[in-house]
């Protein structure tokens, strides 16, 4: 999303929130897929920190998804079922070669989500359109989610640095 771009109305806002839901679902599905793809030995080697990170990423994405879905519902639009995205992720999933590959994938997912919310918040702030959802609640929700994504980026980065 480029600077100066604004959100034009309810339909575009709903579409962008749907994209947010899908990004969360991709993070959630890939985190689960990474974990499932590991052998029992691989899981044992994984280390508690990475296992907790994957679990936390999946839980947090599910929680973000629910908050976005509440906003989408108020805009009289429909969300995207997690099962649908989970199947699409599984269909194109290539298991990373090693644990660093898993961490890099998580980092990429968190960074993309952060950038998406950061741009979306800015575009809504710049917009003078009256949306079908309360402006303050909309921005408040998106800012909170953005802050949690930023924390997620830091958490993955710290684990990567510790492993280096």
């Amino acid at each position, binding site marked *: 999303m480029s600077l100066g771009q604004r959100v034009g109305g309810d339909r575009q806002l709903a*579409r962008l929130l749907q994209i947010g839901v899908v990004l969360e679902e991709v993070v959630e599905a890939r985190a689960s897929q990474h974990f499932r793809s590991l052998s029992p030995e691989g899981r044992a080697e994984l280390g508690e920190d990475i296992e907790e990170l994957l679990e936390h990423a999946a839980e947090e994405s599910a929680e973000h998804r629910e908050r976005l879905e509440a906003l989408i519902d108020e805009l009289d639009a429909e969300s995207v079922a997690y099962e649908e995205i989970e199947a699409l992720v599984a269909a194109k999933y290539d298991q990373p070669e090693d644990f660093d590959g898993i961490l890099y994938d998580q980092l990429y997912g968190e960074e993309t989500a952060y950038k998406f919310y950061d741009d979306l918040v800015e575009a809504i702030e710049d917009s003078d359109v009256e949306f079908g959802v309360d402006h303050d609640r909309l921005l408040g929700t998106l800012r909170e989610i953005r802050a949690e994504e930023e924390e997620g980026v830091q958490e993955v980065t710290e684990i990567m640095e510790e492993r280096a």
Partner: protein
Amino acid sequence: MNTADQYLKAIYLIERTGDGPAATGELAEMLAVSPASVNEMVGKLEERGLVEHEKYKGASLTDDGIARAEDALQTYCIIERFLYNVLDVEDFREEAGALEAVIDDTVAERLDTIIDRRSECPDCFDAEADACALLEAEEPAD
């Protein structure tokens, strides 16, 4: 995709369908902006080494410009395909046009992990129709 990328994509498509550079009038029509806006942006793109502009003929892309235009076109194709295949949006072309300005390349790359895009993308883009030719072929018959 930012405004500059939208211009590069438009020049790329006009050059591909025609025999020469993209004229100011053609770009203004395709992007629904004034000729003055086109001249201003083409000048900026020229300064950045992405476009060469010849007076009375029009704008053509440099090698760097072509590479960036192809990236922009891929992003557009990802958005179209995502809207159609994942969100079941009927007016996916119209909405892709509106969303391409507000979807970042990194977000498009992530969406690309769940859609089935051909390896020849964006070469298969139908420049005259300004749409993905293969996606058209996949549409159900009425």
